[in-house]
């Protein structure tokens, strides 16, 4: 009986830079640096273990063509292992690694590895383990970093009575959280007549259509930051063919470094020790969700409670963060606390302060006026922005968003805290 299994992955972003993690310990930095490559190795192992005959990579193998040779060679070694085992690998380029990019370390691709053209949709037949032709894979690559064309419209199912798979790096369904490269609709994809769409570009696993046809985003193999799209479990799709038809698909996580944002309300947390216990529990719950090399977590503390006083200054927050890191040093799988966002609020009753009619009340009246007067607020911040963006600072500071209303909220809280603390002394 013939056997045919394929694996679909995308958005490897090998040697990707990590954003928003702050400074990490050297041992953690080493793991992070290799994490995207390790995830690729795990994908190769998955293909071999599942005896897959076909691997579809739907774009964004690299984060950019200038990335390290290390990543190219690691990718090449993985392809060679797959080639030795007869696994066919079909690659479509995405917006991060458009067709024609430099593959300086790879002068010859291993047998069985093919790239889809950027000129038009290319089709490759694929055999099962008995050598019988079982599927046709159609695909197209991005020609540049910004492809605005709806590439899905170029796909057409052929007359062969086989399984037809489409490989495309695109923004299907108009996801506003991602750049609209190669935009298309679900109907566009349906109308192409494919049995399975192997999509890339969205980094979280999604099934846009569960059968007839299958339209699936595999998601990335390794998160890159603490943004919503990068957290969660990463992995690849494994599909099997039974009696000439696609019997079903399975999302298989691969071991990788997890990213997580933990929100903790300090309202019911009595002290810092309990907070540490609580965070440990939350982190453990995330790690228990799937295979992980380690977990990089950022904590957002919210709410009002007795702990707010301990978190009132950046120094104290830094001290707490240091303690958290000390507590989890040497854990396997590792747990790295990326940072703490102190979003807690002091236990200040603003209405009561307004009724007092004292200095703090006057300050609240001033901030109330500023909330309603954007121009006045801008004037208040004008001098500060001029200082912040003077000379060499402009290049780096200008990219830091400063929402005036949020800054006003935080400044009001800070001023009130200091004033009330003084008056309480």
């Amino acid at each position, binding site marked *: 009986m013939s056997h045919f299994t394929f694996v679909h992955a995308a958005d490897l972003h090998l*040697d990707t*830079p*990590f*954003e*928003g*993690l*702050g*400074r*990490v310990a050297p041992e953690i*930095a080493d793991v*992070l*640096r290799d994490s995207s490559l390790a995830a690729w190795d795990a994908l190769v192992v998955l293909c071999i273990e599942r005896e897959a005959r076909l691997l579809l990579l739907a774009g964004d193998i690299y984060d950019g063509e*200038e*990335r*390290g*040779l*290390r990543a190219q*060679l690691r990718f090449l070694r993985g392809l060679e292992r797959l080639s030795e085992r007869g696994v066919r690998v079909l690659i479509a380029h995405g917006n991060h690694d458009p067709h024609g990019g*430099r593959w*300086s*370390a790879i*002068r010859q691709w291993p047998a069985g590895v093919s790239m889809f053209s950027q000129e038009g949709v290319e089709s490759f037949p694929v055999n099962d383990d008995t050598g019988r032709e079982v599927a046709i894979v159609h695909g197209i690559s991005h020609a540049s970093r910004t492809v605005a064309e709806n590439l899905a419209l170029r796909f057409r199912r052929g007359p062969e009575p086989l399984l037809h798979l489409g490989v495309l790096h695109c923004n299907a369904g108009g996801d506003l959280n991602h750049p609209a490269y190669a935009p298309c609709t679900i109907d566009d994809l349906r109308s192409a007549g494919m049995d399975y769409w192997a999509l890339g570009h969205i980094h979280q696993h999604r099934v846009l259509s569960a059968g007839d046809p299958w339209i699936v985003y595999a998601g990335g193999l390794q998160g890159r930051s603490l943004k919503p799209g990068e957290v969660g479990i990463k992995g690849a799709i494994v599909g099997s063919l039974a009696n000439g038809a696609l019997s079903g698909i399975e999302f298989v996580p691969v071991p990788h470094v997890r990213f997580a944002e933990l929100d903790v309300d300090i309202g019911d947390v009595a002290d810092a020790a309990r907070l540490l216990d609580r965070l440990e529990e939350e982190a453990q719950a995330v790690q228990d969700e799937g295979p992980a090399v380690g977990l990089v977590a950022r904590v957002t503390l919210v709410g009002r409670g007795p702990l707010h006083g301990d978190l009132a200054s*950046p120094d104290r927050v830094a001290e707490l963060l240091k303690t958290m890191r000390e507590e989890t040093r040497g854990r396997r799988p590792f747990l790295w606390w990326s*940072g703490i966002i102190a979003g807690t609020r002091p236990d200040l009753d603003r209405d009561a302060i307004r009724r007092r009619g*004292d*200095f*703090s009340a*006057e*300050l609240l009246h*001033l*901030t109330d006026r500023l909330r309603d007067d954007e121009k006045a607020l801008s*004037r*208040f*911040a004008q001098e*500060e922005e001029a*200082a*912040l963006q003077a000379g*060499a*600072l402009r*290049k*780096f*500071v200008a990219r*830091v968003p*400063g929402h005036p209303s949020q*800054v*006003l909220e*935080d*400044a*009001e809280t*800070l*001023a009130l805290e*200091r*004033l*009330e603390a*003084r*008056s*309480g*002394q």
Partner: protein
Amino acid sequence: MRIRGWQVEGFGVLCDYDVTDLPDGLVLVHGPNEAGKSTLLAFLRGVLFGFPDRRGSEPLYPPLRGGRHGGALMVEGPNGIYRVERLGGRRGPLAIVRPDDTEGGENDLQQLLGGADRQLFRSVFAFSLQELNSMETLSSDQVRARIFSAGIAGAGRSAREVIDDLHEEAGLLLGARSGRIRELVREAQSLSDQVGAAVRRASEYTEALRREEDAGVEVGRLRDELTRAETSARRANTLIDSWPTESERQASIRVLGALPEIDSFPANPEERLTEALGGVRTAGGSFDETDQELQRLLDHRRDIDVDDRLPPISTAVGGLVAQCAVHREHLARIGDVSSELRQHDDGIGQVLRELGPGWDEPRLASFDTSLPAAEEVRGWQQRLERATREAESAASALALFDRQVAGIDEALARIGAELDRREGSPAEDWFRAVSARLTAVAEAIATLEARAPELVFDARPVETAAAALTAARQGWARLRAIADDAGARARAIMVSPELAALQEPVTEAARHVEVERQRLRDIESQEATRRERQEAVERGTRDLGAGWDEAHVGGMACDFAQIRQAREFAARLADDRERLTGAQRELDHVGKGRSAREKDLQRLQQELASPEPASLEALERQNRSLRRLRTRLAELAEIEGARRAEERVKADAAREDAPTEPDARWLGWAPGAAGAIAIVVALLATWRLLVQDATRGASLAFVAALTALLAFALRFAASRARPAAGGVLGQQRRKQEVGRRLADIEKRAADIRGPVAEDARTLGLPDLPTLEQVEDRQEEMSGERDARRRRDDQVAAASLLTQELESWRESELRRRTEHDDAAEQAAETVRQWEAWLAAKDLPAGMTPDAARDFLQQVRSLQARIEERNAIGERLRTQRTAWQAWRTNAEALLAAGGDSTASASEAATLFERILDVQRRCAEQATRARERKSAQHEAEDWDEKLARAQRARDTAEGDAMSAVRDAHERVADRWRSARAARDSERGRLETFDRESERAAREWDAWQASHGLDRRMSPEGVLDFFDLLRRGHDAIGRRNQMKGTLDTLRAGVAAWEQRVEDVVSTAGLRAPEGAPDAWIDAVGELDRRCQADAAARREAGRLDEAIADGDCALGRARDQRERCEETLAALFLEAGVSSEAEFRERLAQYRSREDLERKVAELESRIVAFLGRGDEAADVRSELSTGRISEWTAQRSERSAEVLDLRTRHEDAIRGHQDLSNERRQLEEAADVADIELQYQAVLEELDAAVRRRRVVSLAATLVGETLREFERTRQPRVLANASEAFARVTDGRYPKVVQTEDAEGIVVLDRLGARRTVAELSRGTQEQLYLSMRLGLAREFGERAVPLPLVMDDVLVNFDESRARHMARELMAFATDHQVLLFTCHSFVRSMLLDLDPDVRVIDMPVYDVAGQDSRLGESETDTGAERPSSLAGPALEASVLQALASSGPLSLTELAGRLECDPEQVRRVLSGLRDRRQVNMSGQKRGARYALGDVDGA
């Protein structure tokens, strides 16, 4: 916080000075000069904030009268009274005891003080006259902040500190040249550059890969060449190194061939020969010694004799001897035991006689006198005694009970009759008497019941009720007098109701007098200001130039954005200029660089025009030819040397061509003949030995050996004589050999000369050059090589220079383009600027800076116009307000009956309205006083009614209490009497029990056969006699058994003696017992002698047997050694020791040579190895062509060195390229640096966000602060103004800040400003005191009210103002505690006049000598107008009642509760304490009193 007292242990003149129970309100501390008032002030400050130390200038106040330096304060906080104790020094130990007696600390003190620090307390709350008059104490920042920014940030520090903190944090984040943000930006820029560099490196990967492959190929080629050269050199080396070994091996083989053949020889021959000879000698000696010892033993054995009858009985005899002592002891004890037996028989007879007739030995033995029987008798004895005793006690108790019942019945009846008889209002003494009698009855009942009296009756309710009745009656009487007095006082006050009704509106109008006065001045001032602003506007408009008027200025849009745009244009133009200048500078620099390189290139090209030297490749070829030539010339020289040597050999051979010596010819055949004879003789000897003819065989063998030796000797001689004896044939062979070698030499020389000529021609030398010519040529080539290298360097430099020049030209072109761009950009900016000027309607040609200044001027002018307009608006408002007040004031004056002020001047109007206000205030005060008096009278009436009701209630309560007490005692008696009646029956049962016990005893005696007349004690004595009889019978029976046992033992021993004596063949003993013992002794001696003889014989027999065995073994050993020696000789093929040693020497020589040859062979094999190649080398080695090998080695070595160097260089190059390629492959720096870069950006984001928040927070607080200060009139000044106005009787109605807000001025009635310096000293002090009252009040509202302590601050005031100030202080004291120290009687009198209730403390007075002559604290209440109708016992009773009903109370609380004078209460309490009716506790934190535990309490 309130000060409740102090305890000065030692502080200056003060010593052991305690004051307690300080009240709220005003307290006057009065004392003459030097009494210690200033010291006390310093003490109060010191305890709270630390005493001065030697570093400061303040007096230290050491304890002049002893005691520890320091003391304690009792202060009352929100939770109760704290004790604050401090001892010497600023940081002296501070001890705080909280109200709950726990230990406190600085925090508690801070809390009590509301956060006030030392300076604030000293400036505002505790000060002397001198400090009052000093502005310095009020000018500290903290105090000033309180005056002018009161309440800005609560009771703590000002908002300015918050701003400072925020600015500090913002500065740390971003300073002018430093700060975290700048650090992060620098780091981010550096990392960004590093990322770019790393990416560029990665792009060179393909080229690196190709270079590495090319280098790998070159390495392989050189490796092959090197291998070949090394193999050749190694072969030559091997041959040269192996030749000495091979030569030695060949020589050893030749010596070995000359030695006789010995196929085999015994192993370890020397050791085995020595061992065999030694064994033969040792074994012979041992045999002889053993034989002699055996003969000696046999002689001794024959001398020993023994008796065979004794051994069987020796054991029995030994046992009998051991029992002899026991036998003697048994004989002695038989006599003793018989005597004792007779004594015991006599004792038994004596006991039977004492028992009397009817008693014999069996009855005696059978009677039971055991311990249980005796215990039974004792039980009877105790039972009989107890029954008798209880019967007697019961009879006595019954008689006493009857007497007590009768007495209690009578007492209760009498009390009941008294209660029925006394109704109405009996006195307290009557209640106490009844209570005492009831107490006595209760005690009687309790005695009857054997219980505690209080369980029966508690007299306290009765006594309490009685005391309450007395107190209620006294209180009622006192209140009645007070109520009457209050009513009379209220009726005496007269009031004008019209003026009183006007008081509030007139006061309100008067309160605004100063405001209106100020308003008028403000109107005037603002008019001036408005005019000034108007002039400024006109001046500014003129300054703008023609065509500009106010409307134009007002209509011009001139905001900050436009000024900023102008500033930006200025910056852009400056940037453009700078950029253009920089571009021009760069262009000049590049032009100079290009020109310099062009010159260098021209110079090089001129140098390169000279003829070109040979190439390095050609020179290298010549060099190789030269190296070969040098090697071949050396080889030729070597060949020439060999040829000359052969020529010498050939000449020697020609000289030796002469006849040989005939005497030596026989040496050629003689060795062979001798050897043949030796062999024949040896065969004969062998045959003879085989046929067992040993003698002849040995002789023949000896002859054969001698012949063989002769053969060897001849051969040796022949070998020595062979050269000489070689003869003609040998010479001819040598000649031929030499000729052949010479031919070979010539051939080799000819072979070399051809290549030599070829190489020489290549080098331009003759065909067969000399070595000197070759060396010269090599030197020439070295010069040519240097010239070639210089030429190559010049060519390379020219090429590089050409490239550089091209690069500089490109750079110049680029710089020129940049310069043009900059110029164009600058022109564009100028165009934009001109367009901007046109759009703003500004004159063309104006520079941005000028435009910015112009705009700022316009903006400033606009601000002035706005300000002028605002002043005008304020003026209108002010005038309207003034008119409204004026109308209202005139109406009020008319209503008050003063219409003369109508239409008068404003100043007069103000005076009138103030006058009316004063009159209204007087009437209002009277009205309030009358109303207050009426209220007071009504209050007293109400209290009187309450007291009436309380008195009636107390009477009823007292009677009810005593009736209840009587009833409770009667009830108790009824129950007690019933209980005792039931007890009577129980007592009568004791008689019956006594009789029954006597009867049962008689029955027991009868059952034991005893006389019934005997008491239990007599029966116990009878038991003792019986026990003595029992003991005598037992001891006699025991003696009888002992005697029988002894007699049987003696008979048995004698029988055993008789048996052994007969066995030994002796006669049995007769007569005395000692004869038996002697016989046993003799027999024992004979047995021991026989046993000793037998042991000696046995030992000798064993020694003889051992000697026989040893003799046999020695004989066998001797024979074996002899056989071993013979076998050794046989194995060696010899017959004697001498022959053996000779043959052994020959064997050893041969063995050494063979070993040496084998060793050399193995060394050669180890060196050359095995296999075909080794065989080839071995073959070559055997030829011995050492010179040829040497030449080969030198040539190959040079070649190997050269190739190895090149190969290693190539490998290093290849490795470098590999490393470079591997680094590129493994380079993680892009990812690493990216990670760091992102981390820094993250940190930067956080820092920027924080900076924005902090900066905005600081701005918010600052803006609020400005607004707050601008809009709110400080309350401190308002309070101070009011107080100061009252003190100065309206002369100075207001205190205001100076313009710079740094000081204060006062306004007089006319609104004129007076600085502080313009005031008299007294007025200044009044001002400062008013300020302090305002500050203290503000602090109290914001934090906690602290006590005000002042030292003689009123002395510089005139009488009127002092009285006003005293009123202010009293008013202030309603919600603050005020301690006023003074030495002046008039101050004391004035205060008591104003308020008779003022507490006055007279300070102790010390005599001149400083001895303890304290009068003690004497607190007097000179205004003793307080109602105190209670006195003496009545007051004591009230105090006790209050304490009983409410528990512990302080003196103040007691006085308040009883509404009595505290001093009276204190005196009463003192008396009660002396009688221990009252206890006092908590002296340290304020004394509290409670009821004591004394009689009657």
